[in-house]
C-alpha cells in the first residue's frame, strides 16, 4: 500500500509534473465542468422558485411597520402591562410618531397593518395622523377626542402586539386564534373562525378526489396496459386529449353539463327520473368541485399507473395460475403488489395537486366547495394581507411535507415511479 503510493508519488508526466497532481487537476476540471453545466438550471430554480418562496414565507413572520415607524410609542409601551390606559408619555410619543409617519407617507400602510388586527383602527390612525402636527400637550384628552379608540386598552395592546418585528401573529390568525390584550393566544369568537375548517375540508376533499381518481383510473390503466398496442394507442389519445385541453375550458364545460338547467338535469327530467321542480344542485358546491377536479386530475393517476403496469410481464400471472392460484388470488397476490409504485406515485401526484388546487374550486365551488387556496388567493389579491396569505401557505407547505415524509416511511420514495 505505502509502496504503491510512493511509487505513484514518484511518477511524473511527460512535462515533469507529478502524476498525482496531474490526475487531481484532471478530475477537478471534470467536476467543474459538471457543476458549470448544472449551474444555469440551479440559478434558474433558485431565482424563480426557492428565492421567491423563501421571501414570501419570510413575510409571514416579518412585521416591520410598527417597530420602524412608531419607535417612540414602542419604547413608551415597553413596560406597560395592559391593565389600564398608558400614561401621558405614551400619548405624546404616539402623536410624535404619527406626525412623522404622515410626513414620510407611511401612515396609510401603518393604518392598514393595524386594521388587519383590530377593525376600525384604519380611520383612527389616518385621522389622528392628519391632525397630529397641530396638537399641543397634554395629548391624552385631545387624542381620545379625535378618536375614542385611543381610550380603549385594546387599541394600545394591538400596537404593543405588533411592536416586535418578528412574531407569530399571522400564524395565530391562520389557525383561528388571536392574541388577547395580555398577549395570550386565545381562540377567535365562533362567528369569525374559518381557516381550520377550511384546512380540514381541503384535506378531506383532496382525499376524496385522490380515491375517486384511483378507483376510476386503475381499470383504465389496466385496460390500456393489457390491450394490444394498436387499440391501446387509440385509447391513450382519449386519456391525453382532455389532458392537453385547457383547464378553464374543462371546468366551464362541467358548468354547462351539471348546472340545474344543464344537460344532465335536462336528461334526468326528460327520462322522468326527477321532476322539473326537483332539479338537483350538482355544481357550485362541494359535489361539483369533486367531480370536476376528479376529471381534471385523472390523467395524473392513469399515466404513472399505466407506465408501471406496462412493465409487469404477463408471464407472472400465468405462472401463478399454473401453480394453482385462482385468477383473483393471483391478481391480488402477484399483480397488485407490483403496481404499488404506480399507485403510490399516482396518489401522491393527485393528492399534492389537489391540495393546492385553485381555479376549479374558485369557479365551481360555490360556498361549500371552497378550499384553503381560495382564501390564500383572497388575501393575496383582495385584502392585500400578504402576511396572512404567507402564513396560510406556509401551513399548507408544512402539511404537504409531513404527508410526503409519512409516504416515504410507508411506501418509500425510491419506489416511486412516475413513468
Amino acid at each position: 500500500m505505502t509502496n504503491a503510493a510512493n511509487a505513484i508519488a514518484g511518477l511524473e508526466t511527460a512535462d515533469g509534473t507529478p502524476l498525482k497532481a496531474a490526475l487531481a487537476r484532471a478530475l477537478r476540471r471534470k467536476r467543474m465542468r459538471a457543476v458549470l453545466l448544472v449551474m444555469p438550471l440551479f440559478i434558474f430554480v433558485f431565482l424563480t422558485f426557492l428565492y421567491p418562496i423563501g421571501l414570501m414565507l419570510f413575510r409571514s413572520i416579518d412585521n416591520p411597520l410598527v417597530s420602524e415607524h412608531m419607535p417612540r410609542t414602542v419604547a413608551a409601551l415597553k413596560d406597560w402591562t395592559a391593565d389600564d390606559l398608558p400614561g401621558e408619555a405614551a400619548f405624546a410619543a404616539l402623536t410624535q410618531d404619527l406626525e412623522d409617519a404622515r410626513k414620510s407617507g407611511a401612515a396609510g400602510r401603518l393604518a392598514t397593518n393595524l386594521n388587519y388586527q383590530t377593525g376600525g383602527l384604519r380611520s383612527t390612525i389616518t385621522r389622528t395622523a392628519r391632525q397630529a402636527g397641530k396638537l399641543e400637550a397634554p395629548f391624552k384628552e385631545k387624542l381620545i377626542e379625535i378618536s375614542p379608540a385611543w381610550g380603549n386598552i385594546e387599541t394600545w395592546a394591538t400596537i404593543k402586539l405588533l411592536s416586535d418585528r418578528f412574531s407569530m401573529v399571522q400564524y395565530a390568525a391562520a389557525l383561528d386564534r388571536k392574541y388577547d390584550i395580555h398577549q395570550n393566544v386565545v381562540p377567535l369568537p365562533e362567528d369569525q373562525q374559518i381557516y381550520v375548517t377550511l384546512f380540514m375540508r381541503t384535506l378531506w376533499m383532496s382525499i376524496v378526489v385522490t380515491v375517486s381518481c384511483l378507483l376510476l383510473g386503475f381499470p383504465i390503466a389496466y385496460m390500456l396496459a393489457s390491450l394490444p398496442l394498436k387499440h391501446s394507442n387509440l385509447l391513450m389519445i382519449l386519456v391525453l386529449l382532455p389532458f392537453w385541453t385547457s383547464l378553464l375550458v374543462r371546468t366551464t364545460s362541467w358548468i354547462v353539463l351539471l348546472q340545474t338547467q344543464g344537460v344532465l338535469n335536462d336528461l334526468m327530467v326528460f327520462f322522468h327520473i326527477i321532476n322539473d321542480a326537483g332539479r338537483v344542485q350538482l355544481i357550485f358546491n362541494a359535489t361539483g368541485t369533486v367531480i370536476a377536479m376528479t376529471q381534471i386530475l385523472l390523467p395524473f393517476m392513469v399515466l404513472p399507473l399505466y407506465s408501471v403496469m406496462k412493465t409487469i410481464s404477463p408471464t407472472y400471472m400465468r405462472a401463478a395460475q399454473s401453480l394453482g392460484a385462482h385468477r383473483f388470488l393471483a391478481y391480488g397476490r402477484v399483480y397488485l403488489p407490483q403496481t404499488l409504485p404506480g399507485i403510490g406515485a399516482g396518489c401522491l401526484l393527485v393528492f399534492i395537486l389537489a391540495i393546492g388546487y385553485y381555479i376549479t374550486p374558485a369557479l365551481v365551488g360555490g360556498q361549500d366547495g371552497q378550499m384553503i387556496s381560495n382564501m390564500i388567493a383572497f388575501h393575496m389579491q383582495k385584502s392585500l394581507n400578504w402576511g396572512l396569505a404567507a402564513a396560510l401557505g406556509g401551513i399548507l407547505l408544512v402539511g404537504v411535507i409531513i404527508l410526503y415524509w409519512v409516504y416515504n416511511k410507508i411506501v418509500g420514495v425510491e419506489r416511486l415511479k412516475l413513468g
Partner: protein
Amino acid sequence: MTIKMNFKTFAAAGALLVGTMAFGAAQAAESLTVVSWGGAYTKSQVEAYHKPFTKKTGIEIKSENYNGGLAEIKAQVEAKNVTWDIVDLELSDVVRGCDEGLLEKIDLSKLPAGSDGKAAKDDFLPGTLHDCAVATIVWTTIYAYDSSKFKGAKPTTIADFFDIKKFPGKRGLRKNPKVTLEFALMADGVAPGDVYKTLATKAGQDRALKVLDTIKGSTVWWEAGAQPPQLLADGEVVMTTAYNGRIFNAAAAEGKPFEIVWDGQVWDLDLWGIPKGAKNKKAAMDFLVFSTTTEQLAAQASWISYGPARKSSIPKIGSYATKPDMKMGPHMPTAPANFKKALQNSPSFWADYQDELNQKFNAWLTK
C-alpha cells in the same frame, strides 16, 4: 423522450426572443396600457376614449382587463416594475391606494372647464374628484330579474329580493360582504341614511347576516361582473344582484327579458388612477384629461348606462349607439325616477371594516 435541437434552431429561437424583447422596448414609448374591467364596459371606453385618443395623438392603447382590487398595482409598485399606466379603480381602492402611496397624485388644475364654461371643480359631481384619481362614471349595484319567470306580481322593492315565499327561485349574490350587507339591511327596513351606522355595530352585522340566512340555501354566488347576466340567461337564478350596465347591455343589445329594480340601489364611482412610478406617466395624464372632458364622458354614456361624472355631460347624453330611437337618459342610475331610494357606497366605512367583515362573511359562508 429526447429533444433534438441543433445549434441553428437554437440560435434562431434566441434571436427571435431578443428581437421581440427589443421590439417590446421600442414599442413602450409609443403605447399606453389602460386597465379596466372588461366586457361591455371596456368596449364603451374603447369607443368613447381609446379610439378618439389614438386618432388625436397617435399613441397606441393596449387594453388590459382585471377584476378590481389593488393586488396587481401593489405587486408592480413594490417590484418597481410598473407596467400599467392608468387603471379604472373603485373609490374604496382609490382611498386606500392613495393612503398607502400606491397611486400618483393628480394635478387637478389640468382638468379643463366643462363645455358650459364652468370650472372643473364645479362641473364634476361632488365627491368625484380625488387627490389621486378622477371619476368618469357613476355606476350602481341593483338587482335584476328575468321577467319571463314571474307571470303575476313582479318584484319592485329591495325587500322582495329576500322574500323567497312571495317570489320563489334561486338568487344570485356577489360573494363579497360589500353591498350585500347593505342590501340585507335595507330589505330589513333600515333607511339608507342609517345603514352604515347600523353596520358598524355587532348587532347590526348579525342582523344583516340573519337576513342573508333566509336565502342562503338558494343562493348562487358570483364574483366577476360578467357572471350575473349569464346566470340569469341560463335560468340558473331568477333574480340576481348585478352592475346596472351589464344588465342594460344584456337587455338592450341582446334583447334579454331582464328588468332592473332600482329600489335600494347602492351607487359607487369608477375613477382613473395612475400607479406610482408608471412608465408612461405623462401620456397617462394626457389620456386622463382627454377622457374626462364633457364630450368624451357624454360619448361613453351612449354605449353603456353608467352616468357621467360631469354635470355638463348630462344634457349631452344621446341615444344608444346602435339603436338611435332608444334614449339613454331613463336608464341612468342618476335619473330621478331611479334615484328615489339610493345609498352611496361608503369608502371610509369599508376601509375601516372590510377586514373584519370579510372575515365574518367568509366564516358565515363556510358554515
